[in-house]
Every structure is written in C-alpha cells, then in structure tokens.
C-alpha cells in the first residue's frame, strides 16, 4: 500500500510532538545526573557546564540502592509470573465456559479496580498481621507479602484484557483440537496460548510495571530489608539535603535495565503479532 504525502506529514508532526513531550524530562534527567550538586541547585542550563560522573558513584553509598533493586526485581517478576498464570486460567474459564457465578465474578473483578487504595491499605495491613499470628506466615515487611499484594493489584485488569483476547480467538480452533482428542488444558496450552502471545506479553508488561512503580503500599508494607526502589528513591531527599543529581542518576540506573528488557521483549511482541494467527 502506498502512503500519501498527507499521512506522512501527519506522522512526522505527531512523532515530533510526542517525542519532545516524552523525551524532555528524560533529557533533563540525564544532564542533571551529570552535574555537581551546586550546579543542579543553581539556574537551569540545558547543557552541564561541569560534567561529572560523581553522582553515579555516590548513589550507591547514600542509599543501599543495589539491595532495593534486587528487591524490586524479585517482587515485580514474581508478581508478574503468578499474576499472568492465574489470569490465564481465570480468563480461559470466563471466555470458554458458561457457569453459575460467572457474571458475579467478572463484575467483582471489575469493581476491585474502583477500590481506593487508601481505603483498604490499613485493613490489608491488619489482615497480614492476623495471618502472621494465626498461621505464622510473616507477610508484613517481607517480599512475599508485597508479591501477593501486587499480583492481586494487576490481576483484575489482566483477567479482563486476556478474556478479551481469548474471546477474539475463534472457538473453531478449540473445537478442531478437541476433535483431535485434546483435553481442555491441551486446548489452552497448545492452541490458545500460542495465538494469544501478544496479549500475554502486553499483560505481563502491565503487571510488571504495576509492581515496579507502586509507592503507597510499599511504603507501609516493607521494612529496610524488603524495601523496593519505588520507595527507596525517596531516600535521596534527606534531612540535610535534596540530592537532585543523585536522584536523577539513581533513576537512570534503575530505569535502564527495564528499558532494555522492554526492547528485548518488543521483538517477541512483534514476532507474535506478525505470525498473523489472529484472523
């Protein structure tokens, strides 16, 4: 298909606007991270006059960044893994079965998206404490507690998204496989999931990001040992100073792996899409 000049111009304009809007804060982050503290506190300049990499060295000692990073990686990836697996089963049930309570389930799942976090933060904390006292499972202040919380946060939307994708996959595919003697699980794993891969990747990305950036619950449910980056970055602002340059440097350091991970996934994403199974 040929592209018209009009749509080409439109594309250029849109890309320029969106890129500037998106990239300016990123640019400021990079340059500020390369300035000494005094310069960051002074008048703003687009280009650092005194380049330094000192902030990138200091960040590791001002705050135990490495440990927080590990916590975040463990929490976010476990939450994503569990959330996606649970969502696959649930959305398969919602999409392929008609059962009693189905609409109650889907409505409730949707309704949880409306719960204001401030309302159930304190009750959740209390429930965790009680689980600890009743079953001896420590959830407050541990990564496990945070993983459970986050996987649940991303679950409703993950189920919704995936159910939508599965609905779009023709039932004839299932039936064909059934005729060939596959069980329900066989259909799910051998027929549906490969086709739904783009949807799965998108949902996984969503789950990961939800856990990666959450601040409110992490600030209450974690202690020093289990603290995540989202909260830990706040520690560069102390009683004595706001280390703007270190905040920016640390933000960059923690963002880079995620962006790279995204780049790698993107290929997967595209491959899944160009397979063109969805017709």
């Amino acid at each position: 298909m040929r592209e018209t000049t009009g749509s080409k111009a439109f594309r250029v304009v849109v890309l320029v606007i969106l890129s500037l809007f998106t990239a300016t804060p990123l640019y400021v982050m990079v340059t500020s991270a390369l300035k000494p503290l005094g310069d960051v506190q002074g008048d703003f300049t687009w280009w650092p006059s005194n380049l330094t990499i000192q902030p990138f060295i200091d960040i590791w000692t001002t705050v135990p960044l490495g440990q927080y990073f590990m916590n975040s990686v463990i929490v976010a990836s476990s939450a994503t893994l569990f959330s996606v697996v649970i969502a696959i089963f649930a959305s398969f049930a919602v999409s392929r079965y008609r059962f009693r309570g189905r609409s109650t389930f889907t409505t409730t799942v949707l309704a949880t998206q409306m719960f204001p976090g401030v309302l159930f933060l304190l009750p959740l904390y209390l429930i965790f404490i009680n689980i600890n006292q009743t079953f001896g499972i420590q959830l407050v202040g541990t990564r496990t507690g945070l993983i459970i919380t986050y996987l649940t946060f991303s679950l409703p939307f993950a189920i919704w998204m995936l159910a939508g994708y599965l609905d779009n996959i023709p039932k004839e595919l299932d039936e064909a496989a059934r005729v060939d003697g596959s069980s329900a699980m066989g259909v799910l794993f051998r027929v549906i999931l490969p086709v739904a891969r783009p949807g799965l990747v998108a949902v996984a990305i969503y789950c990961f990001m939800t856990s990666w950036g959450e601040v409110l619950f992490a600030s209450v449910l974690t202690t020093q040992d289990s603290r995540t980056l989202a909260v830990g970055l706040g520690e560069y602002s102390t009683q004595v100073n706001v280390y703007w340059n270190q905040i920016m440097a640390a933000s960059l350091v923690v963002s880079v792996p995620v962006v790279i991970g995204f780049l790698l996934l993107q290929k997967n994403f595209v491959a899944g899409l160009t397979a063109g199974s969805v017709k």
Partner: protein
Amino acid sequence: MPFALIAPAVVFELLIHVTPMAVGVWMSVVKLTKFYIANWSAAPFAGFDNYHLALDVNGALGASLLNSFAITCAFTALVVSISWILGMAGAVVLQRTFWGRGFFRTLFLVPYAIPVYAGIIAWKFMFQKDTGAVNHLLADNLHLIGAGDKPFWLIGDNAFVAVVVVTIWRMWPFAFLMLMAGLQSIPEELYEASAVDGARPFRQWRSITVPMLGPVNRVLVLVMFLWTFNDFNTPYILFGGAQPPTGDLISFHIYSASFLTLNFGFGSAMSVLLLLFLLLVTGVYLFVLNRRSRRA
C-alpha cells in the same frame, strides 16, 4: 472445571481486595479516631456521623471534600481524554512499518517503564520556579514570557496544570500500548479493501480502526478513568506533604484525613462515598455501552 480455573484468582481477590474492603466499610461507621486506633473493639459505633460530616457541604470538612471532588473530576476528564488522543495518535502513526519505528515505540513507552517516583520527581525538578527547565524554556529560550515573570507551577492555580501534565505524561504510554496491541489484531485486508474503494486515511481510521478497537477502547477508557480518579502517587510525589488547593486530588485528600490527623473512620467514610460514585459512573458507562452495542 471452570470453578477450579478461577479458584486461585478468587482466593487472592478475597484476601487482598474484597475482605480489606469490607473491613474498610466497617471502619466508616465507627468513630475510629486516634483515641481508639490502638484498641479497635472499643471504638464506639458512629452510625452515619462520619458520612454526615463528609456530605455536609456547609461544614468545613464537607466543603473541602466537595472542592477536592470537583478538582478531581476536571483532572480526570482532561487526563483521560488527552492521554487517549495522544495514545491513539502514537499508535496510528506507528501502525505502518518504517525505518525507526522500533525506536519510537520504545521511546514512547519509557515514561511507563521508569519507576513512578523517578518520572514525577524529574517533573518536579523541571517545574521549579527559578531553577526549573520549564520556566527556562518559556522565558529564556522562547521568550514567551519575561525573565522576571516566571510563573509558579507547583503552587497556586498553575499547580492544576502541572499535575495534569505530569499525569498525562505517565498515562498516555499506557493508552498507546493498549491501542497498539489492539491495532495489530485488525487484519490488513480490511485496509487494502477500503483503499481499493478509494477511502482516505482519515476515513479508514473512522470506519475501520475505531470500530475495530471498540472492545479495547471500552476497557481502556474505563480503566484509565478509574486509575486517574484514584491516583495517589502523582500529587503525593509532586507536592510533598501539602498539596495546593488546586491540586487537592481526592485520594490524597483522604490520605491526609486518615493518616496525617489519625481519623480513619472519617477517612473511610469519604473513601466509601468515592467508591459509590465510581460504581455509579461505571454502572452507567457499561449500561449505555451495552445498550448501544446491542442496538448496533
């Protein structure tokens, strides 16, 4: 079989969402002030006192809640609509393969990929009056305003603009991601067929893209609405402990009432009201959409 499949999801939802929520509703009808928080069972039953306080718009607390609610409505309307427009524009221009497409796709998703705190704090830094990049750009680079008239962004009326811009910056990549995924499932043949019929790109967008994205849009708009309305991180990180009146978003408003002044009963009552409002809006939204899709 279906019950076994949804069982894990049900267990976690009950544990993390539903039960705490029920406890939260209970909290809203007791007098859970600082005098009782260490010993819940002794907290006296308050009936609808907490609700009465919150809804009495002539009282100081009711009036400030109403103000916060109005601001949050305006905030949500702007953020959701602009994020959707940007996300759609981005997804559409990247629909076609061209050199550099992967670069832009990654770039646009970066605001979504970096930790919330990092993104918002960078904006906070840029919105400083004398040392911030925004004023430097407007006054010293573009000369749109005089160097002596650099405006405030984080206090006063502009605070509203600031919080809207920052939230859009974080929200639109999500719309972009979802719409892009949705676009991939539209068969290329549809466009080819309509191109043969001589349809211009805008026409194609209206008659093919938008309708085909219907299911994605339905979820996307609703979810963005709910997240934006409940957004806590942006005002909390952008404004610190004290949000300006024009940036007094409702989640933060409730958080201050609950945690800064230790009145969880009142805070919960406000949250329940917020929840009822969101339920109502969602109900109407789904009802209208269902009826329309049935008619179509």
